[in-house]
């Protein structure tokens, strides 16, 4: 593979007159500078090296990028000066696929957007379709949705805690996190039939009612969940290396958070009590009693601790769901072929990473005319450009991990 030499903005001379022969390529060195002239002001600014600076290409297969992400880092020594994330390695064109599928089929495309919190990817799409169709979802179905998604939130946060520690060099917490995740995944598998991509929500309800297998697994797990999770957390919360390294790292203040359109636990760690379950209530959340944990510091430790507190609140919600679960149907009565009236609908839910949203335009046929999917990971990943500069490479990875982006959602 021969890359063309960099053009006018090249930072060093080609080692040979012949552009096809490059000594560093022969030695297996990958050149992160793109082989074409810069197209924007920002690109030419980034790909021009200052005194003593160098490029490091990280990814796409770097373990701490949480998927296939490439980041070109501009370094001064070991300090990050600037960075340019390169996306698209996982782009599947989900929006286009949705526009060519009928409304029921779309749910299966929304599902694999994110492999950690699939139910949250389905929910806004389904909710937007219900708004277009003016369907009222049965209350039992709403409670089952809340119950299953809160379980999914705990699953996601357990994985986050493990990954966070893994990116800082601690191997043990991910093993405990995976134990937690596996129990919940098995539980949801007995409810939905799938371990990873649940494909459980339906337009107007859910796919299946609560069954004995699920309830016995859930009861078993709930009886020891609090102590089990507390025990896992002491691994990190009382680990001085972890806490001192996280404190003060990657500080995100309120104004910057709003400027970068950050939502979810990341903005709550900056002292803003913005949670769409309360800030823009949907489903049966107005009937449920829970707190919105916030932290003032806005650093990596705060983002970690907010998620820890959220797990406890999710357990509270699950407990209330089980006590208040009404009897009744789990699906609204709807025709097989859905043709909503022409119109537009927007729906958003509060996921483990922030605002998951869908914007749907109907033109009266059985396929959505336009299906826009908003994923919080995409929005949060661009704030690494604000948070990383000034940190060492190793800390920069911790900053990225604390924002918890999932590349499946980023690349859509």
């Amino acid at each position, binding site marked *: 593979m021969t890359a063309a030499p960099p053009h006018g903005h090249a930072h060093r001379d080609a080692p040979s007159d012949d552009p096809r022969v490059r000594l560093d390529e022969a030695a297996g060195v990958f050149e992160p500078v793109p082989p074409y002239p810069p197209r924007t002001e920002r690109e030419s600014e980034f790909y021009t090296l200052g005194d003593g600076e160098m490029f490091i290409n990280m990814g796409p297969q770097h373990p701490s990028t949480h998927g296939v992400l490439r980041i070109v880092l501009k370094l001064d020594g070991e300090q990050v000066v600037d960075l340019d994330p390169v996306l*698209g390695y996982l*782009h599947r064109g989900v929006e*286009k696929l949705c526009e060519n599928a009928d409304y029921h089929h779309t749910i299966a495309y929304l599902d694999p957007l994110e492999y950690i919190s699939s139910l949250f990817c389905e929910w806004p799409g389904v909710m937007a379709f219900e708004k277009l169709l003016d369907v009222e979802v049965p209350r039992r179905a709403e409670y089952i949705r809340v119950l299953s998604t809160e379980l999914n939130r705990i699953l996601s946060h357990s994985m986050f805690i493990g990954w966070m520690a893994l990116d800082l060099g601690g191997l043990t917490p991910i093993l405990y996190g995976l134990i937690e995740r596996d129990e919940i995944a098995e539980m949801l598998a007995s409810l939905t039939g799938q371990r990873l991509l649940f494909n459980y929500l339906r337009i107007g309800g859910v796919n299946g009612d609560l069954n004995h297998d699920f309830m016995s697994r859930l009861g078993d797990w709930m009886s020891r969940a609090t102590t089990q999770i507390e025990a896992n957390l002491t691994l990190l919360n009382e680990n001085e290396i972890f806490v001192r390294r996280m404190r003060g790292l990657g500080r995100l203040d309120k104004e910057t958070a709003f400027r970068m*359109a950050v939502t979810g636990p990341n903005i709550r760690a900056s002292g803003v009590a913005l949670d769409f379950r309360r*800030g823009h209530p949907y489903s049966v959340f107005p009937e449920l009693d829970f707190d919105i944990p916030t932290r003032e510091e806005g650093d990596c430790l705060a983002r970690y601790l907010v998620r820890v507190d959220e797990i406890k609140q999710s357990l509270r919600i699950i407990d209330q769901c089980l006590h208040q679960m009404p009897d009744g149907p789990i699906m609204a009565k709807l025709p097989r072929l859905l043709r909503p009236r022409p119109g537009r609908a927007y729906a958003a839910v509060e996921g483990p990473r922030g605002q998951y949203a869908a914007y749907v335009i109907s033109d009266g046929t059985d396929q959505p005319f336009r299906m826009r999917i908003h994923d919080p990971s995409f929005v949060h990943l661009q704030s690494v450009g604000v948070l990383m500069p000034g940190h060492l490479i190793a800390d920069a990875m911790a900053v990225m991990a604390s924002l918890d982006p999932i590349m499946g959602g980023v*690349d859509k």
Partner: protein
Amino acid sequence: MDAALKRRLEARFGERLTAPIAQRHDETEIRIGPGDVPDVVRTLHDDAELGFILLADLAGVDTGTHMQVVYHLWSETTPDWLRVVADGLSRDDPRCPSVTFLWQGAEWMEREAYDMFGITFEGNRDLRRIYMPPDYQAFPLRKDFFLPDDAARSAGAGVRHIEQTHTPRNARPDRVLRKVGA
């Protein structure tokens, strides 16, 4: 539906709205020309009675006859989502002012809309492709871009390569290029 919000919006932007304010469920929709975007968005953000501080989403839309840029905003002052539709961008050269002066986080969302629809956001410092390769020519989410896949039920299905942008000879544009008045 928040009637008070509707009155406030009408009082602020009365003459700039290109269509009556539409409300349905928990959504309020206003339509403006693309040139008014910076002013309107600035007022929505800064005015204490409106206070739309969070950009929830930015999307491009190809209606088949023209392009739109759609902003969804969230505020504490209202239980509604506010949808701002910058309407009537030409399909040949869609241009819209950037909102990155207010929300830096819009930068990547605008890059995405550029990548998928070819909408040029004036004032965005880094408007290049974000998902597709840099040498890619087409804009995949436009309505005249066909999927060659069996999953697509378009009339052009199966007759063309995915990266061709022209309409195939045997395609029936009236069926494929769905136009929406919404």
